């Protein structure tokens, strides 16, 4: 396996699009429930938890980019093979792929559950699951350029939803945040930990890095993206805590959707239906990116053609979607996904860093020896 990725130049995209890729993948279904999850841990100081987790992610992203910059044009799969040898490298790569598959599954089933709760209680899972997977296949067949395009366009198509927050913001109650820092430091940290599922997704950078045209701008684009996602999460959480009281917030599974529910207009009586349906446009980029990463990763690791992986993964996911409809089981999958993610996404880059240093040093030494001999 090549450590650096060789790809056709027309597959490259500008660093500017990295913002949309990362921002799209970070904001998916997780954000719908995040105010509640954070509140359960850190109560009304949850916003501090989100800031905390943002600062942590800034560090992680910085580390990731540092690691990537040590190579010319490599992705994490290549780097792992370079550092740990062929076997361990590939096993680690496979773990990434499994993690992505579980992540994709959790997104799909969560969205289907939301639709079932809010719009069609008697809908079968396979209908929406099948439709979404067909769309994902159709998109991924177009390759990375189309995937990036979907993220880019759908990002703009979904931003209007925030206008619906006006009503809850008008009924905002600042007293809900007092006294500040009531929660202990531990509670705030565990609140930050609980946002991990929502904020995940920037690990994608490890995979798309070789495709970026102007790599020197990657850091700026990625940092803006995580800043944007964190700000969005923060705003939604602050509005939710400000609007709902403690008992409401802890009882509601998806407080963000309930926030959107409040706005009424003369021409549309209930906006929650529109928002739940519209949220599909938030979910589709997620599905598509994950799907692409899985197919691409399988090709890098095992030289399986992307089309084969695409169809096989879609069929596996489809079967899983049919089988899983129990609410608590869905939560188990989300928990599993966030548990794996916590290690892979938030801790692993730091573990990788010393290895990269060691490797670099030995490489330099070898280079020096060669020089000396010459």
């Amino acid at each position: 396996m090549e450590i650096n990725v060789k790809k056709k130049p027309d597959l490259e995209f500008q660093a500017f699009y990295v913002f949309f890729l990362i921002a799209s993948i970070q904001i998916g279904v997780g954000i719908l429930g995040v105010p509640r999850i954070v509140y359960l841990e850190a109560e009304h100081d949850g916003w501090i938890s989100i800031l905390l987790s943002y600062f942590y992610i800034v560090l992680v992203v910085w580390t990731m980019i540092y690691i990537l910059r040590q190579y010319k044009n490599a992705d994490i799969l290549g780097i792992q093979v370079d550092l740990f040898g062929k076997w361990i490298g590939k096993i680690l790569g496979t773990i990434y792929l499994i993690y992505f598959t579980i992540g994709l599954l959790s997104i799909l089933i969560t969205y289907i559950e939301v639709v079932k709760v809010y719009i069609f209680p008697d809908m079968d899972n396979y209908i929406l699951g099948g439709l979404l997977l067909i769309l994902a296949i159709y998109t991924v067949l177009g390759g990375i350029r189309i995937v990036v395009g979907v993220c880019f366009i759908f990002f703009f198509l979904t931003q209007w939803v925030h206008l619906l927050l006006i009503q809850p913001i008008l009924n905002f109650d600042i007293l809900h945040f007092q006294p500040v820092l009531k929660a202990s430091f531990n509670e705030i940290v565990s609140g930050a930990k609980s946002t991990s599922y929502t904020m995940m997704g920037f690990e994608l950078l490890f995979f798309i890095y070789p495709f970026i045209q102007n790599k020197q701008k990657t850091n700026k684009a990625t940092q803006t993206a995580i800043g944007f996602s964190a700000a969005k999460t923060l705003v939604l959480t602050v509005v939710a805590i400000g609007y709902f009281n403690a008992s409401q917030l802890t009882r509601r599974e998806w407080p963000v959707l309930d926030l959107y529910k409040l706005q009424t207009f003369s021409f549309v009586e209930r906006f929650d239906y529109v928002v739940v349906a519209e949220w599909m446009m938030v979910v589709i980029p997620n599905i598509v990116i994950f799907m692409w990463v899985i197919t691409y990763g399988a090709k890098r690791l095992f030289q399986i053609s992307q089309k084969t992986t695409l169809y096989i993964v879609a069929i596996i996911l489809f079967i899983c979607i049919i089988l899983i409809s129990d609410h608590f089981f869905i939560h188990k999958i989300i928990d599993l996904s966030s548990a794996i993610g916590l290690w892979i996404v938030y801790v692993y880059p730091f573990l990788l860093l010393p290895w990269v240093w060691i490797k670099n040093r030995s490489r330099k030494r070898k280079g020096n020896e060669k020089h000396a001999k010459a």
Partner: protein
Amino acid sequence: MQKLKIFPLLALFTFLAACVQTQELETLGIINARGVDLYEESSDELLETTLIVFQFDIQHSAMTNTIIERGKTIKGARKRAGYHMSYNLVPGQISVEMFGRELAERGLSSYLNGLVRDARDNETAYFAITDSTAKEVLTAGQENVAINIGQYLQNLIEKEMNDGRLPETSITHFDHMHTEIGIDPVLPIIDLVNNKPTLTGLAVFQEDKYVDRISMKDALLVNLMKKTLKDTRIEITLPAKPFAPYIQFDPKVDVEEISLMLTILKGKSKISLTDKENLQYETDINLRMNLNEISRSIKINEKNFKLLEKEIEKSLKKDYETLLNKLQEINSDVIGYGKYYAATLREKDLTNEEWREKFPEISVKYNVKVKIVNHGTIM
């Protein structure tokens, strides 16, 4: 390749059609207003619900139908109402939910729970209380109001709310208020006056239980504490004595009171907890008003204008103090002083019971400031 993409889609479409339950408009009996009363003849029939239902039929020109049915829960009663209707009863368009007083005295939270749990229910509908039974108000109202009673009530509440005379009363808001620690909810009371449903006051709750009622004027005072008012009309009665020298035309006629009609251009309030230990509060109220009407003709100049403002301030202050006394007496904190207290507690959370003990002891100092900006064309 293209065929591969289209075929699964087509195949899906064909059996998609049967998979999701349709709710075709003409097959639905759309509940527009619902009244719930206590009814206790047997334990099986705890509640009596009155449903005002839209149903669409070519033969009948009258579309609104009233259905009265009993059941253990609201949803159960709805199910039983469905037994004698060819339409599918659906609750997604309820605009007003009305409760009889007896039921409200027992507490509304269990009914609320069901409404909030079902994501398909309309959370922006309004709650209202009636002193008689909801059944009476809805059925009599349906007969005596030209338009549909559900829409009538909705428009009535909405209008008063937009004008600032009525605090927010939607389901979400009620749910918010009754679960929030340190504040109690209020709901409008709608009674039959001359057989017409009329807003007669504001119901005051202790958590989810009805305890007492206050007048519509007090409702405005409560609302002023909850939000900033704009363009709200208010009637204030002042003692006539201080103005005696300025009364024009027939100063000999002896009157005790002068009534003023004023528009609040902007009314703001600010509550602060000055002494946490002794529970002393200070409430600043700032009002910019327009003078619209005076029951007696008074000569207006700069000096007595100030006097007028002072008198209004005094009168409002008195009103607030009376209101607070009444609220403390019935132990219901609809203004939300408890929230300010809770916001200062660092070690533990405030509980409702705690606040019920403390609320009657609080003392509030009202600082009312009135500025009359405009008084029309007459001096």
